């Protein structure tokens, strides 16, 4: 390797390098016995720098292929990385209350590394590698709340179903290799893995089966009906920051990778029905099932099933607009979910923290938290003027512009079903009678400042997104 290619690999993979550096530093600190105090700071600094470098490169229009055919970066990929890392940074901020050791930051950094890798994948090998590096630390992260009996169950469920997804993915890839004898694309192609794009439109049974398996594996990872049943249990079993990470960052990484994978493929029957009907079912079922959930975390789980449905709807639109719609949606969706989790008042028992009955009359006790959760709920429901509306508008606009009016109308009607349970949260918080907060209020207050920082950051970003959507869209 000559110095020029080494330099390319250094610059192009800068975000990944920074994450790796962070991991190494935290491990060293942990060995030196200072992990408890410094690891989070190191993680914050590294993720922040990585996000900044990705965004910086993207704005410069940098593109390079350090490992031709396997790994390349374009502005679009870098923008995706910057988004995922920025959301990860917010998760780190709000985790201060839950975890004091070095395990959490190091696992999170590893998982983010995988998420970054997925955004640059040019071949199925890289994509698979990224997917696994993304997922493996999360299985452990769910287990970190091991004091609760549910967390082991949740982690196991997640592990088994994650394994199933990997198996399906690999099966699909092998079939694809069998039918096309290629796993990647030659360097320099714009986007999309060509063999997959070809398989989408192919009449060959084997290629078609391969494409279906790969899509279903993505559906499983993103929790699309009927592959969603792991999500509510896993989200409930994990502690709040890990739930936030799964709901926001993992989903964002998978969806962005899906957009990259589909490239400029124009969907046609029967793949079109697969990519339209199952997400539609997710929208409907996710919104219906969320109505009956007793805790905010399970509710968010079902709501995220519905939102995954909207996100896959973006693939129905014209190829040119997909990435913009997905990134904007993920940005709005991610910020709002994180806003909910960051604003949740702390409690002695993590499990009870988000029970709806505990949120009764929250506005009387802590108006700021109630207002933030309220804004997030309205926005997730897609009520203007909040950014969730613009995001939804963009996706449905693309779907209608592509000519799928029926799917768009059905999807919108499905989203109507969701309004009820978002309103219910507001009703509980604002219209319920206040009850004394169970447990001592001063308990976890030492660390809450960080979560407050995270929630204020989310709120500011949300409002900026609501006021200047045009400015953001012009830069995606």
């Amino acid at each position: 390797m000559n110095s020029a290619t080494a330099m390319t690999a250094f610059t192009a993979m800068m975000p990944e390098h920074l994450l790796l550096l962070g991991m190494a530093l935290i491990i060293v600190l942990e060995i030196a016995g200072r992990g408890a105090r410094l690891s989070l700071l190191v993680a914050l600094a590294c993720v922040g720098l990585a996000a900044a470098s990705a965004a910086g490169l993207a704005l410069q229009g940098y593109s390079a292929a350090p490992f031709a055919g396997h790994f390349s970066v374009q502005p679009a990929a870098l923008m995706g990385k910057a988004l995922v890392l920025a959301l990860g940074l917010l998760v780190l901020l709000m985790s201060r209350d839950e975890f004091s050791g070095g395990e959490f930051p190091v696992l999170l950094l590893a998982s983010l590394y995988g998420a970054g890798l997925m955004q640059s994948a040019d071949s199925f090998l890289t994509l698979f590698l990224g997917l696994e590096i993304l997922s493996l630390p999360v299985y452990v992260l769910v287990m970190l709340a091991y004091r609760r009996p549910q967390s082991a169950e949740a982690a196991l469920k997640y592990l088994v179903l994650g394994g199933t997804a990997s198996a399906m993915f690999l099966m699909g890839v092998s079939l694809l290799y069998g039918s096309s004898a290629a796993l990647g694309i030659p360097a320099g192609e714009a986007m999309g893995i060509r063999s997959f794009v070809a398989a989408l439109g192919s009449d060959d049974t084997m290629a078609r089966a391969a494409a279906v398996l790969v899509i279903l594996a993505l559906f499983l990872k993103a929790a699309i009906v009927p592959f969603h049943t792991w999500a509510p249990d896993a989200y409930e079993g994990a502690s709040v920051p890990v739930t936030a990470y799964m709901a926001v960052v993992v989903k964002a990484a998978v969806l962005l990778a899906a957009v990259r994978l589909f490239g400029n493929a124009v969907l046609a029957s029967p793949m079109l029905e697969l990519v339209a009907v199952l997400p539609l079912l997710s929208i409907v079922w996710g919104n219906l099932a969320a109505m009956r959930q007793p805790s905010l975390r399970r509710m968010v789980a079902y709501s995220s099933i519905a939102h995954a449905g909207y996100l896959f709807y973006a693939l129905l639109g014209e190829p040119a607009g997909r990435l913009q719609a997905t990134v904007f949606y993920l940005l709005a969706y991610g910020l709002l979910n994180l806003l909910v989790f960051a604003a949740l008042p702390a409690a002695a028992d993590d499990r009870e923290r988000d029970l709806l009955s505990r949120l009764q009359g929250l506005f009387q006790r802590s108006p700021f938290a109630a207002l933030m959760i309220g804004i997030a709920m309205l926005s997730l429901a897609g009520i203007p003027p909040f950014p969730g509306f613009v995001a939804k508008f963009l996706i449905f606009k693309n779907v209608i512009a592509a000519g799928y009016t029926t799917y768009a109308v059905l999807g919108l009607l499905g989203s109507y079903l969701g309004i009820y349970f978002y309103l219910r949260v507001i009703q509980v918080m604002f219209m319920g009678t206040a009850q004394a907060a169970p447990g001592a209020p001063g308990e976890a207050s030492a660390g809450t400042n960080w979560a407050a920082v995270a929630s204020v950051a989310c709120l500011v970003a949300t409002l900026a997104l609501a006021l200047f959507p045009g400015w953001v869209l012009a830069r995606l």
Partner: protein
Amino acid sequence: MSDALVLNLVLFLPLLGIGLLLLVPADQPTLVRRLTLLVMVVVFVLTLRLYVHFDSTVAGLQFETRLPWIAAWGVHYQVGLDGYNILLVMLTAFLGPLVTASAFTAITKDVKLFYAMVLLIQFAMTGTFLAQDLFLFYVFWETMLIPMFLMIGIWGGERRIYATIKFFLYTAFGSILMLAAVIYLVVSLQDAGGVTSFAFADLVKARLPLDVQAWLLAAFALSFAIKVPMVPLHTWLPDAHVQAPTAGSVILAGVLLKMGTYGFMKLGFPLFPDATHLFTPVLMSLAVLSIVYGACLALVQDDIKKIIAYSSISHLGYVMLGLLSLQLTGIQGAVIQMVSHGLVAAGLFLMVGMIYERCHTRELAAYGGLARLLPVYSVFFMVLTLASVGLPTTSGFTGEFLVLLGAFTGAWPQYLAGDSLPLILAGVAVSGVVLGALYMLRFALTFLFGATKAPQTGAHPLTDLDGREKTILALIVVAVFALGLFPGEPLRKTELAAKNFQQLVTTPRLPAVKP
């Protein structure tokens, strides 16, 4: 200060007011109330200035602001005054201070949040009227739901949760289909002409095939008809009105219900004239049905708030009838009727709220002979009742008379041409006037005369109106008479818009079908 700047101030001052409220400590409710009132009064004064400066000889938008908002989609922040919205903006600004002052004693829980919501809804309502860009309109249109949802849900009566969720879900259902229609409209305009624009001025140029027009109008009409509300989509209204706090009812009856009719006038009919022609018999029948059915229901209610709620359904039926007559008199009458109903229904709800604060019941049978107990109150009540019935010299008369005149003028040529439905409908609509007199007089007779009774609680002695209440009602009564006696000036302001509406809706957008 340029008038365009003043217009933006009128829109954004309430939002600024919310910012100021945030700085006030929660334990100083009096300061919160005064601050809100101050903001509302300033907004009204500025609106008055705009009203005076508004040139009624100029067609189209005045004091316009147009800035790119989401440039990639052709979405603009575009606001301005025209003949369509000037009276309604004026009404909104006029009711703002009255609503604020009316809640001074009634609302004692979470005062800060309450007034923040009053200001927020003022902002959203003004914005809905002023918006000249469909995207902006939709954003404001939906934003209105949030403060009203909280207002009914937090400060409402016993069944407030049920009522407020019903209100939200009902109206949101209409909106979601309208959203699909909005997107479809803009996308098809883009495909046809290559222009991506949400501006009303561009959208009225769309030449869509009839079936598309029919679907889109159906979606828009569903949303607007729920808001009006037209029978059979009215069932949310009585619940919302009865459970809402007085200020909520006043805003709902005074301004929010006008959103539906304004939507039909500004968007629904002018955007899809050919489909409107197709739907006119159905919509006109529903309008007349609303007039008669609303009046009949108002006749048998025991709850005083429900009487006024159902009377609103009846009165807004006239507005729809006037718009659909497509006669200049009818359209002008519809606009006057909107403002008149906004004043009269708001006044009646305020009066119901005042008696409720004293006696804590809305049961009609619990009251009697108030004329002897509360003479000042009774005078005001009688005046507003007569305005609601449509006695000449009050605003109610001007509106209803012009609407019916328009309906008959429009129906006669059609009758001569062999279509008797419009004439029959106009005839039936007249019966609404009689029914209106019946239910309002039944209400007033039981309420004010007869055996003296009023539920009294020890803590709240039954006293007549105080200075604040008298001022509020006096202002409304003055406005009612002003509109009834001197309708010429407001009618001049709206005349060009009415002509524009008539011309847009009566000119077919599609080429005539070849035989």
